[in-house]
């Protein structure tokens, strides 16, 4: 014998609705009801409305540094719509669209971005972890959550979000490898938005796609058009069903684009061209969704205005609620460190004059 091929792998790409709003393969749309289409539209509008207001609030100094989701709505909402009540979500830091779609109170998100930990006191009944700042380090948590589900015999799954940058981290590797070995019910969603601050995807890795990394872990990966909310939805739903059937994890790469600066502290014009951004703006998720809906008689300007207005009102109310909320207590710095304060912590509270 000499050299032989052991195995052949295919990296795959899924798109359902193209940039002109056409669904070439109507069969793929079968499972997608008009209600779902409208839900997707409305969720995207909500996410975008929230996002726009958050950017404004930051400019006005009413919240801190904020990471815009503009351009990534389809990736976030398409996947979030497939998640069921008892599934758990392990996000990164840019997934406000996911939080909102899962029903996270808007005012709490605003508290969080204003620098109040209480904004991430996730309400009971919602199974989403707090924002994770160290890029990629949340991925093993999803493996652990999925593992716990499996050990407890729960018929649920963990969904994890991270970016193209996050996929370079050791956490990614160890977490996905372990999820593969133990066939855990986990769905790993990489929002490849082409940039990690100033580092373009091509410099993040020499691999052509992130999704092909699944080969390294013995499970399936797929790249989807991350600006096509239904491709993302379908891939996520399929992966969740597979996970619940006990067939193990899936890696989904949403091929999308970060249209705004990395955060409000960033100036993307230092490292990428306006033309590139303009090209991608043409592909942003709402354009094609509107076209698709129009073809199906689901969209009118009046409808969109209505939806936008409703979102605006909700966000406005949330801003008021958030800003009226009393400031956090100094003692919380100490009292949430452990379940029970230590003697030294109690002495410290007294010395600092912070009420217990």
């Amino acid at each position: 014998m000499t050299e032989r091929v052991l195995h052949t792998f295919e990296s795959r790409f899924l798109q359902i609705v193209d940039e002109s709003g056409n669904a070439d393969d109507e069969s793929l749309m079968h499972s997608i009801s008009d209600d779902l289409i409208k839900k997707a539209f409305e969720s995207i509008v909500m996410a975008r409305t929230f996002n726009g207001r958050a950017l404004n609030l930051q400019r006005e100094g009413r919240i801190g540094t904020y990471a815009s989701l503009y351009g990534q709505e389809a990736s976030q909402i398409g996947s979030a719509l497939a998640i069921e009540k008892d599934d758990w979500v392990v996000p990164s830091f840019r997934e406000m669209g996911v939080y909102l779609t899962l029903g996270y109170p808007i005012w709490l998100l605003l508290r969080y971005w204003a620098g109040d930990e209480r904004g991430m006191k996730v309400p009971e009944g919602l199974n989403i972890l707090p924002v994770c700042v160290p890029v990629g380090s949340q991925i093993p948590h999803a493996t652990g959550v999925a593992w716990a589900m499996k050990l407890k015999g729960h018929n649920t799954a963990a969904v994890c979000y991270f970016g193209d940058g996050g996929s370079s981290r050791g956490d990614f590797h160890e977490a996905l490898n372990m999820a593969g070995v133990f066939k855990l019910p986990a769905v790993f969603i990489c929002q490849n938005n082409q940039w990690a601050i100033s580092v373009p995807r091509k410099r993040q890795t020499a691999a052509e796609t992130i999704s092909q990394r699944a080969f390294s872990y013995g499970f399936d990966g797929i790249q989807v058009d991350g600006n096509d909310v239904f491709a993302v939805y379908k891939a996520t739903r399929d992966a969740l069903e597979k996970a619940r059937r006990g067939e193990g994890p899936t890696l989904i790469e949403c091929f999308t684009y970060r249209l705004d600066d990395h955060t409000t502290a960033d100036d993307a014009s230092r490292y990428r061209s306006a033309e590139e951004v303009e090209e991608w703006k043409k592909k942003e998720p709402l354009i094609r969704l509107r076209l698709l809906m129009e073809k199906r008689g689901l969209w009118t300007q009046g409808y969109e205005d209505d939806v936008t207005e409703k979102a605006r009102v909700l966000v406005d109310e949330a801003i008021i609620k958030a800003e009226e909320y009393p400031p956090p207590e100094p003692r919380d710095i100490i009292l949430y460190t452990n379940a029970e304060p230590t003697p030294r912590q109690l002495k410290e509270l007294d010395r600092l004059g912070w009420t217990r």
Partner: protein
Amino acid sequence: MDKMNMVQAINMALRQEMARDDDVVVLGEDVGRDGGVFRVTDGLIEEFGPDRVIDTPLSELGIVGSAVGMAVYGLRPVVEIQFMAFIYEAIEQVYSHATRMRTRSRGRFGCPIVIRTPYGLGIKGPELHSDSAEAIFCHMPGIKVVVPSTPYNAKGLLASAIRDPDPVVFMEPARLYRAIKTAVPEDEYSIDLGRAEVFQEGKDMTVIAWGSMLHAAVEAADGFDAEVIDLMTLKPFDEETILASVRKTGRVVIVHEATKYCGLGAEIAAFLAEEAIMHLNGPILRVTAPDGVVPMAMLEDLYMPTSKRIRKAYEEVMRY
């Protein structure tokens, strides 16, 4: 009541806690079929099955990170890290996640994980098999750090660690695993975290130590009227017991295997310099490893605080 060594005592604690609470799972490298490289988890896989006694891939970061996720979901993972130095890859998971989950979620999520790991000198292992990195963990808010010094307290402290709602690093002195036997009741019992024990009473000086250094400190105390405190919980340490003793003796020697610079001995000394300086007759002495990298086997005994070096410190404080 049978006498047993520390390996057996820890094994028993694990067995009893797993039997008591289905949410307790053990995971790590070689903890299942092999029973752990020190055999601490021996027999657990036979009793509780491979779902609860999990042989993992070689992935410290992944193990600790998964344990964080498990704990957030409601399990009580007990991680074994094969040797203390191998946890360094996973420090971010401990420092940025396990210890901050409660704060970050304002109490919605706790992170009750236990990280068990052998530490310390005396086994003449290869490089990086003898580190004592307690100080690094002690510096982290939101964590507990525990070190048993006898089979008896190993069992009781581990039971408490597993039941604790917050992350605990449970450091096992590798040198003591099989070196001493004590009576260990078959019945379940627990020893409160945060409490030190006066291992030996005395009037002339207070000696503070833990793990295998406790025994070195006691041995060196022959001929001195030394009060030797077994710290047991390194964070948060038992300020009351230490203060009470120092108020009585006025002299302090702290012994540990780690290097001095920013070791835990520094915190104890600084605490006393802040709270009890008026009770001190003289300097607070620390007997520690010298300021060098943990050596390999040939120089290992010299790196360790030897009885001789400890005695020298006792003699020195007695001059005041």
